[in-house]
């Protein structure tokens, strides 16, 4: 059957057959056993494809005339198609094994999606040739041989097969590969000969032609040339130097394809055009290079500072006397109990009487611990212990002489401070004993007599010149101004206020009552009415109860201002507090209120405060509303005269003692011609202190040691070392400072500014502050 030949014409009776009819005739002929087919083509499409009915028999199709599109499409391996002339588009489309020989040019789309077979073109091909070609591993690779050149967009998405472009009489002599070849190429090889104008660098690359490649090329080239009947070209074509090979880049090569690295661009383009340092090199010299997120040293935004004693503790700040309370607890913690006790005498002559008994302890009211509902550190224990405090060494008296008028707490405080500094002080008082109201008025229920006596004796041992029962006149003051360098007026408030109402002469003042009761020469009544329900009124009530009163009523025009122990004691004595009550008249048997109500009384005490008695003052000492005018240093309008205590402003004992100390400091500064150093320390912010370290189940303190241990030492380092331990960077060290100090230091080169030290510090000593920018 091999030689059984049939000629099929694409025209019958001068009428061109449809491609479908011609296809039917060709398939029919093959089915009938014809293996040599000669087709007279008149532009029919798809000639020679799909000839599977021949089984494994070779089928030879010769095409004469004009082939249409898709010659040999879906061709089978048994098929050989020879075209004696050019072919239209898409020759060998989806070719699955046919050999196609075209003795002329081919149009666009040659061998698109071919996967097996060979296609020989004895001319040029149009655009988009060899696109989407593949190689199935089960079969040999498809081949496209082009004698001339290929058109534009050659080999797009080429995935396999071999193309050989010989470059003989190319359509464009300067470019055998056409425009933009091999876009999307992923496999296969392209041998070409002749000039080109680039290919998809992304997808393809020039590869060396190996010996094996060359062998293959020359062997098959000979077959190609023979088949297309141009064997004479062989010699000129087998010049190895003239050939190049393009292969697909591997996926790895594609992934790693390099644009110019930015670093190189930065250096060689950017900086070259702009100058050294780039965009801003002319304006800044500082380093702008990258840094890590968590830097150390100057690059930290925040840095810790050890602010030991930079701020006042709330207790110290609230003590009018100015006693550095945390310092005393520090000494306690260090086992230096004596020093803690003795320290008080530097600040006050009455640490036991006042801190231990009579003071409402403003320090404790301010104690930070109360923020967490924990009891304040109990200063009264330390106060009471101060009865045994050792006197500081007294310097020789070498200094100035100062007269102090008034031997109450304020006067003795200023005298004490000045004497401790070696000045010659002389104290005058109207009364027959020292101590002022503290000694003569405050009931013994509030302080044991022995305590006050002992402290007054201690004062006397320090201040020898105390002149009692001195009724001073204006002339004395003027004389003192001549005789003494400074004068301090500390006369207190000794003039009780009285109500301007009928029957006022029937009442006693609180001052009279308390003085007499303390001296033991008064009887209380059975029914006592006290007008004025402040703390002094409460003292009166307590004393009246002690003296046998059966009913005690305290009246006030407003809600009583009394508080603390005085109030509690009065309430314990059964005193009744009534307000608002305005007294209209005091009668022989009671008090009549503005409402007309009569409260029976056989003893009426008026306790509405005392005013200073300033009759003796020279006129050049200015007063205001009955009190002496002073500046912040307790200096009066006469520069060498100071005034302190209740004569300036009514207050607590600690206020009086504090004013004495401050006036003494002012006098000392004046003597030394120093500008006083203002203590501008503010109070530490409470949030800086960590109370979590302390035991919340302690409800009261049993001894000074427990007080010391539970003191958070606000603002003053406890030397606990927690900061050293918590620092994640090991950046904090404790440094000994000769002779006996220490400090905690930060190694900036280790520190990251996390603020853990500030967060952990029990005392609030560490702070995290903005790190100054170093440019």
């Amino acid at each position: 059957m091999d030689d059984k030949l049939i000629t099929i014409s694409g025209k019958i009776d001068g009428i061109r057959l449809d491609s479908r009819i011609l296809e039917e005739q060709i398939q029919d002929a093959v089915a009938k056993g014809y293996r040599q087919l000669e087709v007279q083509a008149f532009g029919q499409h798809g000639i020679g494809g799909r000839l599977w009915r021949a089984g494994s028999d070779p089928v030879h199709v010769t095409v004469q005339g004009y082939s249409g599109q898709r010659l040999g499409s879906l061709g089978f391996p048994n098929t050989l198609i020879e075209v004696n002339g050019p072919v239209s588009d898409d020759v060998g489309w989806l070719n699955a094994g046919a050999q196609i020989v075209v003795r002329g040019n081919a149009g666009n789309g040659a061998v698109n999606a071919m996967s097996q077979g060979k296609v020989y073109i004895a001319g040029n091909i149009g655009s988009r040739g060899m696109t989407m070609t593949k190689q199935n591993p089960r079969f040999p690779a498809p081949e496209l041989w082009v004698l001339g050149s290929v058109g534009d967009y050659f080999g797009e998405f080429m995935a396999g097969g071999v193309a050989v472009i010989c470059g003989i009489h190319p359509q464009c002599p300067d470019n055998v590969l056409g425009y933009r070849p091999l876009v999307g190429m992923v496999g296969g090889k392209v041998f070409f000969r002749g000039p080109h104008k680039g290919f998809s660098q992304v997808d393809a690359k020039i590869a060396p032609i190996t010996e094996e490649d060359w062998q293959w090329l020359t062997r098959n080239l000979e077959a190609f040339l023979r088949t297309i009947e141009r064997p004479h070209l062989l010699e000129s074509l087998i010049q190895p130097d003239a050939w190049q090979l393009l292969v697909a880049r591997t996926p790895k090569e594609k992934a790693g394809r390099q644009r110019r690295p930015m670093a190189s661009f930065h250096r060689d383009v950017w900086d070259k055009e702009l100058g050294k340092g780039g965009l801003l090199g002319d304006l800044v010299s500082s380093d702008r290079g990258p840094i890590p997120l968590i830097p150390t040293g100057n690059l930290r935004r925040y840095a810790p500072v050890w602010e030991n004693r930079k701020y006042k503790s709330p207790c110290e700040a609230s003590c009018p006397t100015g006693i550095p309370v945390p310092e005393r607890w520090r000494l306690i913690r260090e086992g230096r109990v004596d020093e803690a006790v003795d320290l008080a005498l530097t600040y006050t002559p009455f640490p036991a009487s006042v801190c231990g008994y009579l003071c409402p302890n403003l320090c404790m009211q301010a104690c930070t611990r109360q923020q967490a509902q924990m009891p304040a550190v109990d200063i009264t224990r330390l106060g009471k212990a101060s009865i045994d405090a050792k006197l500081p060494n007294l310097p020789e008296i070498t200094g100035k002489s100062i007269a102090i008028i008034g031997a109450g707490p304020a006067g003795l405080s200023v005298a004490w401070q000045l004497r401790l500094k070696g000045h010659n002080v002389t104290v005058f008082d109207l009364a027959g004993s020292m101590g002022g109201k503290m000694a003569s008025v405050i009931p013994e229920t509030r302080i044991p007599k022995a305590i006050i006596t002992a402290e007054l004796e201690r004062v006397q041992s320090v201040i020898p010149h105390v002149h009692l029962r001195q009724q001073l006149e204006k002339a004395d003051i003027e004389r003192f101004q001549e005789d003494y360098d400074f004068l301090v007026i500390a006369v207190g408030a000794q003039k009780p206020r009285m109500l301007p109402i009928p029957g006022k002469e029937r009442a006693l003042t609180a001052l009279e009552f308390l003085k007499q009761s303390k001296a033991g020469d008064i009887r209380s009544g059975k029914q006592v009415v006290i007008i004025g329900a402040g703390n002094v009124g409460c003292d009166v009530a307590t004393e009246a109860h002690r003296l046998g009163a059966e009913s005690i009523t305290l009246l006030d025009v407003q809600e009583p201002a009394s508080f603390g122990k005085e109030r509690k004691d009065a309430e314990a004595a059964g005193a009744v507090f009534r307000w608002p009550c305005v007294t209209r008249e005091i009668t022989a048997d009671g008090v009549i209120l503005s409402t007309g109500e009569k409260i029976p009384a056989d003893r009426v005490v008026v306790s509405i405060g005392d005013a200073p008695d300033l009759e003796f003052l020279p006129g050049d000492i200015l007063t205001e509303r009955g009190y002496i005018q002073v500046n912040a240093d307790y200096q009066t309008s006469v520069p060498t005269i100071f005034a302190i205590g209740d004569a300036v402003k009514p207050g607590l004992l600690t206020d009086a003692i504090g004013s004495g100390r401050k006036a003494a400091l002012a006098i000392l500064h004046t003597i030394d011609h120093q500008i006083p150093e203002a203590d501008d320390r503010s109070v530490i912010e409470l949030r800086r202190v960590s109370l979590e370290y302390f035991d919340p189940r302690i409800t009261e303190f049993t001894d000074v040691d427990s007080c010391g241990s539970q003191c958070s030492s606000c603002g003053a380092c406890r030397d606990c070392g927690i900061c050293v331990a918590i620092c994640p960077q090991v950046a904090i060290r404790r440094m000994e400072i000769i002779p006996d100090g220490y400090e905690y230091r930060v190694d900036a080169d280790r520190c990251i500014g996390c603020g853990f030290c500030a967060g952990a510090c029990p005392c609030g000593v560490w702070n995290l502050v903005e790190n100054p920018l170093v440019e």
Partner: protein
Amino acid sequence: MPSNRPITPSTLSVRDLPWQIVWDKDKCTLCGQCTAICPVHALELGVFRKRTVALPLGIIGAPPENHTQLFYGIRQKTDPAFACVGCAMCTMVCPNGAISPHRSDDMDKLVFHRDRGGLPRSRGGRRNTPGTVLDQIKFIRISMLTDPALDAGRHEFEIRTLLGRVLPPEDNLKFIRQNGWIPPVREIYPLMIGGMSFGALSPNMWEGLQMGVVYLNEELGMPVRISTGEGGCPPRLLRSRFLKYVILQIASGYFGWDEIIHAIPDMKEDPCAIEIKYGQGAKPGDGGLLMWYKVNRLIAAIRGVPAGVSLPSPPTHQTQYSIEESVAKMIQSMSMAWGFRVPVYPKISGTSTAMAVLNNLTRNPYAGGLGIDGEDGGTGAAYNISMNHMGHPIASNIRDAYLGLVTAGMENEIPLIAGGGIGKSGNLAANAAALIMLGASGIQVGKYIMQATAGCVGAESDRCNICNIGQCPKGITSQDPRLYRRLDPELVAQRLVDVFLSFDMELRKIIAPLGRSTSLPIGMSDALGVSDYHIAERLKINYVV
């Protein structure tokens, strides 16, 4: 909080804050990184006391015992001044994954207390509303062999737009004949980097963006342009060939303009264009203020002012109250400065009055375009009220402007440049393409660029948004070298390149199926569809479901 702490009206619990720090005691290693990195000091080390009461089972007479242990941990501050901003830098630096901020699922109570001292809240970022109309627009016209079907990967694209006044050919001929001059036009990439000033941005960020732009131009052939924003331009850039990639902005503060003027004789190249800023989408009708602490020596030098003074840019140009004045004064004078070789165009906030501006520009051949910045634009600092409640959406604004030009027969003669929240949800190319098809010739982006090139963590869930306080945790908007040195200009440049290349590919993927490869589908609104009927009607695009 101490048990006895006084409570104030602004005393809040962690639960009242918008962001809550979740911290895992078991994982925490107490390394201090989180407290060190937190830009707003929202975190601190806390000392905690843990009490347990121990007693045996059965009440058998043995006394219960109290045990107390101390431990340390990370505590979130509740003071509104230190409220967590959710930037999650703590999470980034934590070696153990022990800490992260979480957005409260409850309504933020801090919002009621952000007016301390009577000052309303200001912040950086964008409107705190996610999503935009642009995100809803789809491209419904896919060439199924109807138009030439293009392959975004295979075909050649030349995505370009024109900036400058494009006169009809007959007008151009007339101009040439009569004046010897036609308006300058630039062929540029349609995605432009919007104005972010030297000062609003850190030096490293600014340099990185400029470097990336030059790379795109000179290494990749993409004619990308960047606006300087209102803060002048570094002298070296003014005198380099790179100036041609730069759009110089002039705004109401006029900062740095004397330095620009002094540099004119030394310029090797003309700038790409001059942008006259009249408004900003993020804070329409409001000005800006570069706080004194950001005005360091460097910024001062570039802006031509002394260091350490606050620099106000008022809401308006002080001598101009109408577009007529603006055209007469600024557009013409700016054109004169470069011999009429440089396009000059105004940029305004999105507004219902945009058409009035556009109408005026159409009558003036010096007007090189109109930038409209919509309400979703970003900023380094603005009042919250301006950002969240002021402004006009860009979509209908640009559409109206384009259709107005169509009515006048002048479409594409005055390029419209759209800005404001483009790519807000990450859909940069889709948003840009939608705007182009609605009628924009070009697109300006700022915030997206910061997010994509420098890792800005700001979000529309009110995350971070602290550009205004100079503490940008990524170093994008800070003038503190300790922060901005976190940013490597080279890496910013590299990211910018990646962003533009990927944008380019995405844009191709949108316009290739439309059969466009070399001319932008400006105004090709038949390709747009939306499933919201009212949006479709308003924008005159297809309603599709």
